[in-house]
Protein backbone atom coordinates (compact mmCIF):
# COMPACT_ATOMS: atom_id res chain seq x y z
CA UNK A 1 0.00 0.00 0.00
CA UNK A 2 1.32 3.50 -0.81
CA UNK A 3 1.95 5.93 2.04
CA UNK A 4 -1.02 8.23 1.23
CA UNK A 5 -3.37 5.24 0.87
CA UNK A 6 -2.14 3.87 4.20
CA UNK A 7 -2.67 7.30 5.78
CA UNK A 8 -6.26 7.43 4.51
CA UNK A 9 -6.88 3.96 5.87
CA UNK A 10 -5.33 4.77 9.24
CA UNK A 11 -7.29 8.01 9.65
CA UNK A 12 -10.42 6.14 8.58
CA UNK A 13 -9.93 3.51 11.30
CA UNK A 14 -8.88 5.93 14.02
CA UNK A 15 -10.81 9.12 13.39
CA UNK A 16 -13.92 8.33 11.39
CA UNK A 17 -16.06 7.67 14.50
CA UNK A 18 -15.07 10.96 16.13
CA UNK A 19 -15.59 13.05 13.00
CA UNK A 20 -18.93 11.38 12.33
CA UNK A 21 -20.06 11.85 15.92
CA UNK A 22 -19.42 15.58 15.80
CA UNK A 23 -21.07 16.01 12.40
CA UNK A 24 -24.20 14.13 13.49
CA UNK A 25 -24.60 16.60 16.35
CA UNK A 26 -23.95 19.65 14.20
CA UNK A 27 -26.19 18.48 11.35
CA UNK A 28 -28.87 16.84 13.49
CA UNK A 29 -29.02 14.15 10.81
CA UNK A 30 -27.35 10.75 10.95
CA UNK A 31 -27.58 9.97 7.25
CA UNK A 32 -26.37 13.33 5.96
CA UNK A 33 -23.44 13.27 8.38
CA UNK A 34 -22.42 9.83 7.16
CA UNK A 35 -22.58 10.94 3.55
CA UNK A 36 -20.47 14.03 4.29
CA UNK A 37 -17.81 11.95 6.08
CA UNK A 38 -17.82 9.52 3.16
CA UNK A 39 -17.31 12.47 0.77
CA UNK A 40 -14.36 13.67 2.85
CA UNK A 41 -12.60 10.30 2.77
CA UNK A 42 -13.22 10.02 -0.96
CA UNK A 43 -11.66 13.48 -1.36
CA UNK A 44 -8.65 12.37 0.72
CA UNK A 45 -8.19 9.24 -1.37
CA UNK A 46 -8.30 11.39 -4.51
CA UNK A 47 -6.04 14.26 -3.46
CA UNK A 48 -3.52 12.94 -0.90
CA UNK A 49 -1.55 10.86 -3.43
CA UNK A 50 -0.84 13.96 -5.56
CA UNK A 51 -0.93 16.77 -2.95
CA UNK A 52 0.73 14.78 -0.17
CA UNK A 53 -0.67 13.75 3.22
CA UNK A 54 -1.60 16.90 5.21
CA UNK A 55 0.33 17.67 8.39
CA UNK A 56 -2.75 16.94 10.53
CA UNK A 57 -4.77 14.38 8.56
CA UNK A 58 -7.57 14.11 11.13
CA UNK A 59 -8.13 17.87 11.15
CA UNK A 60 -8.12 17.87 7.34
CA UNK A 61 -10.85 15.18 7.30
CA UNK A 62 -12.93 17.07 9.89
CA UNK A 63 -12.74 20.37 7.99
CA UNK A 64 -13.43 18.70 4.65
CA UNK A 65 -16.37 16.69 6.01
CA UNK A 66 -17.80 19.86 7.52
CA UNK A 67 -17.58 21.68 4.15
CA UNK A 68 -19.08 18.69 2.34
CA UNK A 69 -21.92 18.81 4.88
CA UNK A 70 -22.46 22.50 4.10
CA UNK A 71 -22.60 21.64 0.37
CA UNK A 72 -25.08 18.86 1.03
CA UNK A 73 -27.27 21.01 3.25
CA UNK A 74 -27.31 23.77 0.63
CA UNK A 75 -28.72 21.27 -1.86
CA UNK A 76 -31.30 19.84 0.60
CA UNK A 77 -33.83 22.62 0.30
CA UNK A 78 -36.51 20.72 2.17
CA UNK A 79 -34.42 19.88 5.26
CA UNK A 80 -36.04 21.01 8.52
CA UNK A 81 -34.33 23.98 10.17
CA UNK A 82 -31.99 24.22 7.18
CA UNK A 83 -31.24 27.94 7.45
CA UNK A 84 -30.32 27.80 11.14
CA UNK A 85 -28.20 24.71 10.69
CA UNK A 86 -26.38 26.22 7.73
CA UNK A 87 -25.68 29.42 9.67
CA UNK A 88 -24.30 27.42 12.60
CA UNK A 89 -22.10 25.27 10.34
CA UNK A 90 -20.73 28.37 8.58
CA UNK A 91 -19.99 29.97 11.96
CA UNK A 92 -18.10 26.86 13.11
CA UNK A 93 -16.29 26.61 9.77
CA UNK A 94 -15.03 30.18 10.14
CA UNK A 95 -13.41 29.42 13.50
CA UNK A 96 -9.71 28.66 13.42
CA UNK A 97 -10.08 26.71 16.66
CA UNK A 98 -13.36 25.67 18.27
CA UNK A 99 -14.40 27.89 21.18
CA UNK A 100 -14.48 26.49 24.71
CA UNK A 101 -18.13 25.45 24.58
CA UNK A 102 -17.77 23.69 21.24
CA UNK A 103 -14.52 22.02 22.33
CA UNK A 104 -16.27 20.54 25.36
CA UNK A 105 -19.15 19.36 23.14
CA UNK A 106 -16.65 17.68 20.78
CA UNK A 107 -15.10 15.79 23.69
CA UNK A 108 -18.43 14.10 24.41
CA UNK A 109 -19.61 13.53 20.84
CA UNK A 110 -18.45 9.93 20.62
CA UNK A 111 -20.17 9.21 23.91
CA UNK A 112 -23.39 10.70 22.50
CA UNK A 113 -23.00 8.51 19.44
CA UNK A 114 -22.39 5.33 21.49
CA UNK A 115 -25.44 5.95 23.67
CA UNK A 116 -27.59 6.65 20.63
CA UNK A 117 -26.39 3.53 18.77
CA UNK A 118 -27.04 1.39 21.86
CA UNK A 119 -30.41 2.92 22.72
CA UNK A 120 -32.80 0.33 24.19
CA UNK A 121 -35.53 1.41 21.74
CA UNK A 122 -33.46 -0.16 18.94
CA UNK A 123 -33.46 -3.92 18.34
CA UNK A 124 -30.37 -5.61 19.82
CA UNK A 125 -29.04 -6.71 16.42
CA UNK A 126 -29.52 -3.20 15.09
CA UNK A 127 -27.59 -1.76 18.04
CA UNK A 128 -24.67 -4.05 17.25
CA UNK A 129 -24.67 -3.28 13.53
CA UNK A 130 -25.06 0.46 14.04
CA UNK A 131 -22.32 0.61 16.69
CA UNK A 132 -19.86 -1.31 14.53
CA UNK A 133 -20.73 0.71 11.45
CA UNK A 134 -20.66 4.15 13.12
CA UNK A 135 -17.95 3.86 15.77
CA UNK A 136 -16.02 0.88 14.60
CA UNK A 137 -14.25 0.96 11.31
CA UNK A 138 -16.28 -1.91 9.87
CA UNK A 139 -18.12 -1.75 6.58
CA UNK A 140 -21.58 -3.23 6.16
CA UNK A 141 -20.03 -6.08 4.14
CA UNK A 142 -17.54 -6.85 6.92
CA UNK A 143 -20.28 -6.86 9.55
CA UNK A 144 -22.36 -9.19 7.39
CA UNK A 145 -19.48 -11.63 6.90
CA UNK A 146 -18.51 -11.55 10.57
CA UNK A 147 -22.06 -12.29 11.73
CA UNK A 148 -22.74 -14.80 8.94
CA UNK A 149 -25.74 -12.88 7.63
CA UNK A 150 -26.49 -11.58 4.17
CA UNK A 151 -25.17 -8.10 3.48
CA UNK A 152 -28.58 -6.67 2.45
CA UNK A 153 -29.98 -7.82 5.79
CA UNK A 154 -27.32 -5.87 7.68
CA UNK A 155 -27.77 -2.84 5.43
CA UNK A 156 -31.51 -3.03 6.05
CA UNK A 157 -31.01 -3.22 9.83
CA UNK A 158 -28.83 -0.12 9.76
CA UNK A 159 -31.22 1.82 7.52
CA UNK A 160 -34.18 0.93 9.74
CA UNK A 161 -32.29 1.86 12.89
CA UNK A 162 -31.32 5.26 11.49
CA UNK A 163 -34.87 5.87 10.35
CA UNK A 164 -36.18 4.99 13.79
CA UNK A 165 -33.68 7.34 15.45
CA UNK A 166 -35.02 10.16 13.29
CA UNK A 167 -38.73 9.27 13.32
CA UNK A 168 -39.08 8.28 16.96
CA UNK A 169 -36.93 11.18 18.15
CA UNK A 170 -34.22 9.18 19.92
CA UNK A 171 -32.14 11.99 21.44
CA UNK A 172 -28.47 12.48 20.57
CA UNK A 173 -27.05 12.95 24.03
CA UNK A 174 -25.36 11.40 27.01
CA UNK A 175 -28.19 10.27 29.30
CA UNK A 176 -28.78 12.25 32.51
CA UNK A 177 -27.29 10.88 35.75
CA UNK A 178 -30.41 9.01 36.87
CA UNK A 179 -30.53 7.02 33.61
CA UNK A 180 -26.78 6.64 33.21
CA UNK A 181 -26.24 3.32 35.04
CA UNK A 182 -28.92 1.46 33.05
CA UNK A 183 -27.95 3.02 29.76
CA UNK A 184 -24.25 2.36 30.33
CA UNK A 185 -25.12 -1.27 31.05
CA UNK A 186 -26.90 -1.35 27.66
CA UNK A 187 -23.74 -0.05 25.94
CA UNK A 188 -21.50 -2.57 27.70
CA UNK A 189 -23.87 -5.40 26.76
CA UNK A 190 -23.58 -4.47 23.09
CA UNK A 191 -19.78 -4.46 23.28
CA UNK A 192 -19.74 -7.82 25.05
CA UNK A 193 -22.10 -9.25 22.45
CA UNK A 194 -19.72 -8.13 19.70
CA UNK A 195 -16.78 -9.63 21.56
CA UNK A 196 -18.49 -12.96 22.15
CA UNK A 197 -19.59 -13.19 18.55
CA UNK A 198 -15.92 -13.01 17.63
CA UNK A 199 -14.62 -15.11 20.51
CA UNK A 200 -17.15 -17.91 20.24
CA UNK A 201 -16.58 -18.10 16.52
CA UNK A 202 -15.76 -21.45 15.07
CA UNK A 203 -17.27 -20.97 11.66
CA UNK A 204 -17.01 -18.36 8.98
CA UNK A 205 -14.15 -16.08 8.17
CA UNK A 206 -11.84 -16.44 11.18
CA UNK A 207 -9.86 -13.28 10.56
CA UNK A 208 -12.99 -11.18 10.37
CA UNK A 209 -14.41 -12.72 13.48
CA UNK A 210 -11.18 -12.13 15.35
CA UNK A 211 -11.55 -8.59 14.08
CA UNK A 212 -14.79 -8.43 16.10
CA UNK A 213 -12.80 -9.14 19.29
CA UNK A 214 -10.31 -6.41 18.42
CA UNK A 215 -13.11 -4.00 17.61
CA UNK A 216 -14.96 -4.74 20.88
CA UNK A 217 -11.73 -4.21 22.83
CA UNK A 218 -11.00 -0.99 20.97
CA UNK A 219 -14.51 0.31 21.73
CA UNK A 220 -14.14 -0.91 25.33
CA UNK A 221 -10.97 1.16 25.69
CA UNK A 222 -12.78 4.13 24.20
CA UNK A 223 -15.69 3.82 26.66
CA UNK A 224 -13.19 3.58 29.56
CA UNK A 225 -11.40 6.69 28.32
CA UNK A 226 -14.69 8.58 27.96
CA UNK A 227 -16.16 7.38 31.28
CA UNK A 228 -13.09 6.85 33.49
CA UNK A 229 -15.20 6.52 36.65
CA UNK A 230 -17.31 3.63 35.40
CA UNK A 231 -16.11 0.51 37.18
CA UNK A 232 -18.09 -1.93 35.04
CA UNK A 233 -16.70 -0.46 31.81
CA UNK A 234 -13.20 -1.22 33.11
CA UNK A 235 -14.40 -4.62 34.31
CA UNK A 236 -15.69 -5.43 30.84
CA UNK A 237 -12.44 -4.27 29.23
CA UNK A 238 -10.48 -6.47 31.66
CA UNK A 239 -12.75 -9.44 30.95
CA UNK A 240 -12.39 -9.09 27.18
CA UNK A 241 -8.60 -8.69 27.37
CA UNK A 242 -8.15 -11.69 29.67
CA UNK A 243 -10.26 -13.90 27.39
CA UNK A 244 -8.66 -12.56 24.25
CA UNK A 245 -5.18 -13.27 25.66
CA UNK A 246 -5.97 -16.97 25.26
CA UNK A 247 -7.23 -16.69 21.69
CA UNK A 248 -4.23 -18.29 19.95
CA UNK A 249 -4.03 -21.13 22.46
CA UNK A 250 -7.61 -22.22 21.80
CA UNK A 251 -6.65 -23.99 18.57
CA UNK A 252 -3.96 -26.59 18.13
CA UNK A 253 -1.80 -27.10 15.02
CA UNK A 254 -4.59 -29.10 13.38
CA UNK A 255 -7.10 -26.31 14.05
CA UNK A 256 -8.81 -28.34 16.76
CA UNK A 257 -10.44 -26.66 19.76
CA UNK A 258 -8.28 -26.82 22.90
CA UNK A 259 -10.18 -26.46 26.20
CA UNK A 260 -8.80 -24.17 28.89
CA UNK A 261 -7.35 -26.97 31.02
CA UNK A 262 -5.19 -28.28 28.17
CA UNK A 263 -4.03 -25.00 26.66
CA UNK A 264 -0.34 -24.22 26.22
CA UNK A 265 0.15 -21.34 28.66
CA UNK A 266 3.21 -20.16 26.76
CA UNK A 267 0.92 -19.25 23.88
CA UNK A 268 -1.11 -16.87 26.02
CA UNK A 269 -0.58 -13.21 25.15
CA UNK A 270 1.30 -11.73 28.14
CA UNK A 271 0.73 -8.10 27.07
CA UNK A 272 -3.02 -8.65 26.87
CA UNK A 273 -2.98 -10.34 30.28
CA UNK A 274 -1.02 -7.50 31.87
CA UNK A 275 -3.32 -4.89 30.37
CA UNK A 276 -6.34 -6.92 31.49
CA UNK A 277 -5.08 -7.28 35.05
CA UNK A 278 -4.31 -3.55 35.19
CA UNK A 279 -7.83 -2.75 33.96
CA UNK A 280 -9.28 -5.05 36.62
CA UNK A 281 -7.21 -3.38 39.35
CA UNK A 282 -8.39 0.04 38.16
CA UNK A 283 -12.00 -1.20 38.16
CA UNK A 284 -11.81 -2.64 41.67
CA UNK A 285 -10.15 0.52 43.00
CA UNK A 286 -13.43 2.31 42.20
CA UNK A 287 -15.16 0.07 44.76
CA UNK A 288 -18.38 -0.44 42.81
CA UNK A 289 -18.58 -4.18 42.13
CA UNK A 290 -20.57 -5.52 39.21
CA UNK A 291 -21.00 -8.66 37.13
CA UNK A 292 -18.31 -7.82 34.55
CA UNK A 293 -15.74 -7.18 37.26
CA UNK A 294 -16.54 -10.49 38.95
CA UNK A 295 -16.27 -12.35 35.64
CA UNK A 296 -12.96 -10.60 34.96
CA UNK A 297 -11.73 -11.62 38.41
CA UNK A 298 -12.60 -15.23 37.58
CA UNK A 299 -10.73 -15.00 34.28
CA UNK A 300 -7.79 -13.44 36.15
CA UNK A 301 -7.61 -16.40 38.54
CA UNK A 302 -7.37 -18.71 35.53
CA UNK A 303 -4.60 -16.81 33.74
CA UNK A 304 -2.71 -15.92 36.90
CA UNK A 305 -2.15 -19.52 38.01
CA UNK A 306 1.30 -20.81 37.02
CA UNK A 307 -0.22 -24.13 35.94
CA UNK A 308 -3.66 -25.72 35.58
CA UNK A 309 -3.10 -27.65 38.85
CA UNK A 310 -2.46 -24.41 40.71
CA UNK A 311 -5.79 -22.79 39.79
CA UNK A 312 -7.56 -21.61 42.94
CA UNK A 313 -10.90 -23.31 42.32
CA UNK A 314 -12.25 -22.50 45.79
CA UNK A 315 -11.82 -18.78 45.09
CA UNK A 316 -13.41 -19.22 41.65
CA UNK A 317 -16.37 -21.04 43.23
CA UNK A 318 -16.79 -18.15 45.68
CA UNK A 319 -16.70 -15.63 42.85
CA UNK A 320 -19.39 -17.56 40.95
CA UNK A 321 -21.43 -17.42 44.14
CA UNK A 322 -20.97 -13.63 44.19
CA UNK A 323 -21.85 -13.41 40.51
CA UNK A 324 -25.02 -15.41 41.14
CA UNK A 325 -26.07 -12.88 43.76
CA UNK A 326 -25.35 -9.90 41.44
CA UNK A 327 -26.88 -11.46 38.32
CA UNK A 328 -28.69 -14.72 39.08
CA UNK A 329 -28.76 -17.21 36.22
CA UNK A 330 -28.74 -21.00 35.85
CA UNK A 331 -25.59 -20.75 33.69
CA UNK A 332 -23.75 -19.11 36.60
CA UNK A 333 -24.99 -21.91 38.88
CA UNK A 334 -23.63 -24.44 36.39
CA UNK A 335 -20.22 -22.77 36.43
CA UNK A 336 -20.27 -22.70 40.21
CA UNK A 337 -21.01 -26.44 40.27
CA UNK A 338 -18.03 -27.05 37.97
CA UNK A 339 -15.73 -24.93 40.16
CA UNK A 340 -16.92 -26.68 43.33
CA UNK A 341 -16.36 -29.99 41.55
CA UNK A 342 -12.69 -29.06 41.19
CA UNK A 343 -12.34 -27.44 44.62
CA UNK A 344 -14.12 -30.10 46.70
CA UNK A 345 -14.36 -33.13 44.44
CA UNK A 346 -16.76 -34.44 41.79
CA UNK A 347 -19.45 -35.54 44.28
CA UNK A 348 -19.79 -32.00 45.65
CA UNK A 349 -20.03 -30.71 42.07
CA UNK A 350 -22.65 -33.30 41.14
CA UNK A 351 -24.73 -32.35 44.19
CA UNK A 352 -24.93 -28.76 42.94
CA UNK A 353 -25.40 -29.73 39.31
CA UNK A 354 -28.19 -32.24 39.93
CA UNK A 355 -31.04 -29.72 40.33
CA UNK A 356 -29.94 -27.91 37.17
CA UNK A 357 -30.66 -31.00 35.05
CA UNK A 358 -34.36 -30.36 35.73
CA UNK A 359 -34.09 -26.68 34.92
CA UNK A 360 -36.20 -26.22 31.75
CA UNK A 361 -34.17 -23.27 30.43
CA UNK A 362 -30.96 -25.29 30.69
CA UNK A 363 -32.08 -28.77 29.59
CA UNK A 364 -31.01 -28.29 25.97
CA UNK A 365 -27.76 -26.46 26.83
CA UNK A 366 -24.83 -28.64 25.67
CA UNK A 367 -22.31 -27.31 28.26
CA UNK A 368 -24.60 -28.53 31.07
CA UNK A 369 -24.38 -32.11 29.83
CA UNK A 370 -20.68 -31.78 29.02
CA UNK A 371 -20.02 -30.62 32.60
CA UNK A 372 -22.24 -33.39 33.94
CA UNK A 373 -20.28 -35.91 31.88
CA UNK A 374 -16.93 -34.59 33.12
CA UNK A 375 -18.05 -34.81 36.75
CA UNK A 376 -19.44 -38.35 36.30
CA UNK A 377 -16.19 -39.41 34.60
CA UNK A 378 -14.13 -38.07 37.48
CA UNK A 379 -16.49 -39.73 39.96
CA UNK A 380 -15.83 -43.05 38.18
CA UNK A 381 -19.29 -43.48 36.59
CA UNK A 382 -18.22 -44.38 33.04
CA UNK A 383 -21.65 -45.44 31.75
CA UNK A 384 -23.26 -42.28 33.11
CA UNK A 385 -20.48 -40.17 31.65
CA UNK A 386 -20.83 -41.80 28.24
CA UNK A 387 -24.59 -41.12 28.18
CA UNK A 388 -24.06 -37.50 29.22
CA UNK A 389 -21.37 -36.92 26.54
CA UNK A 390 -23.74 -38.41 23.96
CA UNK A 391 -26.47 -36.05 25.08
CA UNK A 392 -24.16 -33.03 24.91
CA UNK A 393 -22.99 -34.01 21.40
CA UNK A 394 -26.57 -34.64 20.21
CA UNK A 395 -27.66 -31.20 21.37
CA UNK A 396 -25.33 -29.51 18.92
CA UNK A 397 -22.96 -26.71 19.75
CA UNK A 398 -20.26 -26.11 17.19
CA UNK A 399 -18.21 -28.67 15.30
CA UNK A 400 -14.89 -28.18 17.13
CA UNK A 401 -16.52 -28.40 20.53
CA UNK A 402 -18.43 -31.54 19.48
CA UNK A 403 -15.18 -33.11 18.31
CA UNK A 404 -13.60 -32.37 21.69
CA UNK A 405 -16.56 -33.98 23.50
CA UNK A 406 -16.33 -37.06 21.29
CA UNK A 407 -12.62 -37.28 22.09
CA UNK A 408 -13.34 -37.25 25.82
CA UNK A 409 -16.12 -39.81 25.44
CA UNK A 410 -13.91 -42.14 23.41
CA UNK A 411 -11.12 -41.78 25.98
CA UNK A 412 -13.45 -43.30 28.61
CA UNK A 413 -12.58 -46.73 27.31
CA UNK A 414 -14.68 -49.89 27.84
Amino acid sequence: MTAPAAAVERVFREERGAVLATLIRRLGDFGMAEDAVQDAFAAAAASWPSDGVPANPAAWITTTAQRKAIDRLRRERAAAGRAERLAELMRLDAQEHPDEEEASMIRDDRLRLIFTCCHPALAPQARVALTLRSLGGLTTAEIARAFLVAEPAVAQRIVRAKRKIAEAGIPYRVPPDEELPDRTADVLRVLYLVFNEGYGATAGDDLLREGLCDEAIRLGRLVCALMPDDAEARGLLALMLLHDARRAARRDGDDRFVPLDRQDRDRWDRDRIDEGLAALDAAMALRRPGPFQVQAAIAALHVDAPSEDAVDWAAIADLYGALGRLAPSPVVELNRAVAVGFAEGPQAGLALLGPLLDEPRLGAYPPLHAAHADLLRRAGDRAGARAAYDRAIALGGNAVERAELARRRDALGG
Partner: protein
Amino acid sequence: MPRYTLLMYQPADGTGAPAGQDEWAAAQARWQGFLADLTDAGLLVANEGLAGTDAATTVRVRGGATEVTDGPFAETKEYLAGFFLIDAPDLDVALSWAGRIPSAEYGSVEVRPVWGQGGS
Protein backbone atom coordinates in the same frame (compact mmCIF):
# COMPACT_ATOMS: atom_id res chain seq x y z
CA MET B 1 -42.26 19.88 20.08
CA PRO B 2 -42.69 16.31 18.81
CA ARG B 3 -45.93 14.59 19.67
CA TYR B 4 -46.30 10.99 20.82
CA THR B 5 -49.21 8.65 21.47
CA LEU B 6 -48.94 6.34 24.44
CA LEU B 7 -51.19 3.39 23.59
CA MET B 8 -52.17 1.39 26.66
CA TYR B 9 -52.71 -2.32 26.16
CA GLN B 10 -54.09 -4.57 28.87
CA PRO B 11 -54.46 -8.34 29.19
CA ALA B 12 -57.89 -9.33 27.87
CA ASP B 13 -58.40 -11.69 30.81
CA GLY B 14 -57.76 -8.90 33.33
CA THR B 15 -54.65 -10.57 34.78
CA GLY B 16 -52.89 -8.25 37.19
CA ALA B 17 -55.46 -5.44 36.91
CA PRO B 18 -56.62 -3.87 40.19
CA ALA B 19 -59.22 -6.10 41.85
CA GLY B 20 -61.32 -5.32 44.92
CA GLN B 21 -62.44 -1.98 46.27
CA ASP B 22 -59.23 -0.94 48.05
CA GLU B 23 -56.95 -1.78 45.15
CA TRP B 24 -59.33 -0.03 42.79
CA ALA B 25 -59.38 3.13 44.91
CA ALA B 26 -55.58 3.13 45.18
CA ALA B 27 -55.28 2.68 41.41
CA GLN B 28 -57.71 5.57 40.81
CA ALA B 29 -55.59 7.82 42.96
CA ARG B 30 -52.46 6.87 41.02
CA TRP B 31 -54.16 7.54 37.66
CA GLN B 32 -55.29 10.96 38.88
CA GLY B 33 -51.80 11.74 40.15
CA PHE B 34 -50.26 10.74 36.84
CA LEU B 35 -52.76 12.84 34.87
CA ALA B 36 -52.17 15.83 37.15
CA ASP B 37 -48.37 15.56 36.76
CA LEU B 38 -48.66 15.34 32.99
CA THR B 39 -51.00 18.33 32.91
CA ASP B 40 -48.76 20.38 35.25
CA ALA B 41 -45.78 19.62 33.00
CA GLY B 42 -47.78 21.17 30.16
CA LEU B 43 -47.39 18.07 28.01
CA LEU B 44 -50.91 16.59 27.92
CA VAL B 45 -52.72 16.99 24.60
CA ALA B 46 -55.49 14.41 24.96
CA ASN B 47 -56.38 11.33 26.97
CA GLU B 48 -59.22 8.82 26.83
CA GLY B 49 -59.95 5.41 28.28
CA LEU B 50 -61.84 3.15 25.90
CA ALA B 51 -64.86 0.96 26.50
CA GLY B 52 -64.15 -2.76 26.32
CA THR B 53 -63.95 -4.73 23.08
CA ASP B 54 -67.44 -6.08 23.85
CA ALA B 55 -68.67 -2.66 22.75
CA ALA B 56 -66.52 -2.63 19.61
CA THR B 57 -67.87 -2.69 16.08
CA THR B 58 -65.64 -3.05 13.03
CA VAL B 59 -66.33 -1.41 9.69
CA ARG B 60 -64.74 -2.40 6.37
CA VAL B 61 -65.50 -1.07 2.92
CA ARG B 62 -64.76 -3.62 0.21
CA GLY B 63 -65.64 -3.12 -3.42
CA GLY B 64 -67.82 -0.18 -2.44
CA ALA B 65 -69.86 -2.26 0.00
CA THR B 66 -69.79 -1.38 3.69
CA GLU B 67 -69.45 -4.36 5.92
CA VAL B 68 -70.20 -4.00 9.62
CA THR B 69 -69.28 -6.72 12.09
CA ASP B 70 -69.59 -7.12 15.82
CA GLY B 71 -66.38 -7.11 17.82
CA PRO B 72 -62.80 -5.87 17.47
CA PHE B 73 -60.73 -6.04 14.28
CA ALA B 74 -58.70 -8.88 15.71
CA GLU B 75 -59.06 -10.96 18.86
CA THR B 76 -55.85 -10.62 20.82
CA LYS B 77 -54.53 -11.45 24.25
CA GLU B 78 -54.05 -7.73 24.89
CA TYR B 79 -56.53 -5.08 23.89
CA LEU B 80 -56.20 -1.32 23.44
CA ALA B 81 -57.63 0.10 26.65
CA GLY B 82 -56.91 3.79 26.19
CA PHE B 83 -54.38 6.35 25.10
CA PHE B 84 -52.54 9.52 25.95
CA LEU B 85 -51.48 12.04 23.34
CA ILE B 86 -48.54 14.04 24.69
CA ASP B 87 -45.94 16.55 23.62
CA ALA B 88 -42.39 15.52 24.51
CA PRO B 89 -39.03 16.90 23.43
CA ASP B 90 -37.68 13.45 22.57
CA LEU B 91 -38.31 9.71 22.85
CA ASP B 92 -36.55 9.37 26.21
CA VAL B 93 -38.99 11.83 27.80
CA ALA B 94 -41.97 10.05 26.20
CA LEU B 95 -40.66 6.69 27.44
CA SER B 96 -40.21 7.94 30.97
CA TRP B 97 -43.83 9.16 31.08
CA ALA B 98 -44.98 5.85 29.58
CA GLY B 99 -43.15 4.04 32.38
CA ARG B 100 -45.17 5.97 34.96
CA ILE B 101 -48.56 4.88 33.61
CA PRO B 102 -50.10 2.64 36.30
CA SER B 103 -51.30 -0.02 33.84
CA ALA B 104 -47.72 -0.47 32.54
CA GLU B 105 -47.25 -2.67 35.62
CA TYR B 106 -49.69 -5.31 34.35
CA GLY B 107 -50.27 -4.36 30.71
CA SER B 108 -47.95 -2.60 28.28
CA VAL B 109 -47.65 0.82 26.74
CA GLU B 110 -46.74 1.26 23.09
CA VAL B 111 -45.09 4.60 22.39
CA ARG B 112 -45.59 5.82 18.83
CA PRO B 113 -44.49 9.16 17.42
CA VAL B 114 -47.11 11.04 15.42
CA TRP B 115 -46.40 10.57 11.72
CA GLY B 116 -44.25 12.93 9.69
CA GLN B 117 -42.43 14.91 12.35
CA GLY B 118 -38.91 13.54 12.08
CA GLY B 119 -36.69 11.84 9.61
CA SER B 120 -36.64 12.22 5.92
